């Protein structure tokens, strides 16, 4: 498995490629933990180049979801390949995990959410 990290504004985009399995899934959590202390508001996992995911990989995504929600950080999973999507559908994780079609849509959604929060904050202070 290959992990590459990019930053866009306050979002961290994690590009994952190859196979996510029992022997490397823990690296996803390690990657997030090492970045969490930086000034980051959201993590976007791009799975476009993932060729295989086993239950350890799904487990890592579930654990990340819980961990980031607890820490009030946004989490999005984007560009899920059809084979991985099928696993998520059959285990009925679609709707539970924060899936978005593309990275752009995820970034756009996060920006809009941020704008909305800022507007409601300014309305409260007004």
């Amino acid at each position: 498995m290959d992990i590459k990290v990019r930053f866009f504004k306050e979002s961290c985009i994690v590009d994952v490629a190859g196979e996510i399995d029992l022997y490397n899934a823990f690296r996803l959590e390690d990657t997030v933990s090492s970045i969490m202390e930086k000034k980051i508001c959201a993590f976007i996992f791009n799975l476009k180049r993932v060729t295989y995911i086993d239950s350890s990989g799904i487990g890592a995504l579930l654990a990340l979801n819980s961990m980031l929600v607890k820490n009030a950080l946004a989490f999005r999973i984007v560009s899920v390949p059809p084979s991985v999507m099928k696993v998520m559908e059959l285990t009925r994780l679609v709707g539970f995990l924060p899936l978005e079609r593309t990275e752009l849509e995820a970034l756009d959604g996060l920006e809009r959410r941020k704008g909305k929060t800022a507007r409601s904050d300014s309305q409260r202070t007004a």
Partner: protein
Amino acid sequence: MTARKPGLWESVYYAIVHSRTLTLTTSTYLPAERAHIDRILGAFLEAAGMEQLRNNLAYCVHELAGNAKKANMKRLYFREKNLDILSRDDYALGMERFKTETTEQISHYLAGLKQNGLYVKFQFRKLKKGVRVSVRNNSVPAPAEIRRIEEKIGIVRQYTCLADAYSRTQDGLEGAGLGIVMMLFMLKNLGFGPDAFSFRAADNESVATLTLVARRAAETEEEERTATA
């Protein structure tokens, strides 16, 4: 003249046509072997008229094989560290470093599986209306491991989906066992009954079996269609 040994695909088709058990054995279960198992499973499912389930059922077989390989590797690791896998204290101690050390020295442990005769055996059999796939490995499960699998089966009976089970029993699902729960939910959602999966210890082996009968899946599909009509 000596008789020619049949090729793999000849054996596959012979096993399908004559409803014989086809057995394949590996120690390492690497991605290339996984792809090979996929193709063989595909041939059996096609013969049973269940080819549309190939990717999903392949996922289940991979989970079982991954568990079998992990169980063998665990035995090898414990042996090397002079730890008793049946002792609660040794087990806890061994599991602390098992994943990290076996990942860091994967080549050593893969070679060790072969050298120590530790195997994962796949058995495919075409049934009258489906397919039976068994995944065997030569590590006898510890009573605690059997108990854990039974617990997972209980969880799947209790909850309707993985997300629900995960959010309510997070601690119990993390680490070992999530694969079994996922697989059971997948089987359930594909329309297979609770008897589609079984696990037992037999003659120094652990045996996980998927009995996939086409009728059940088809019936469920029909029921769903009728219910939504």
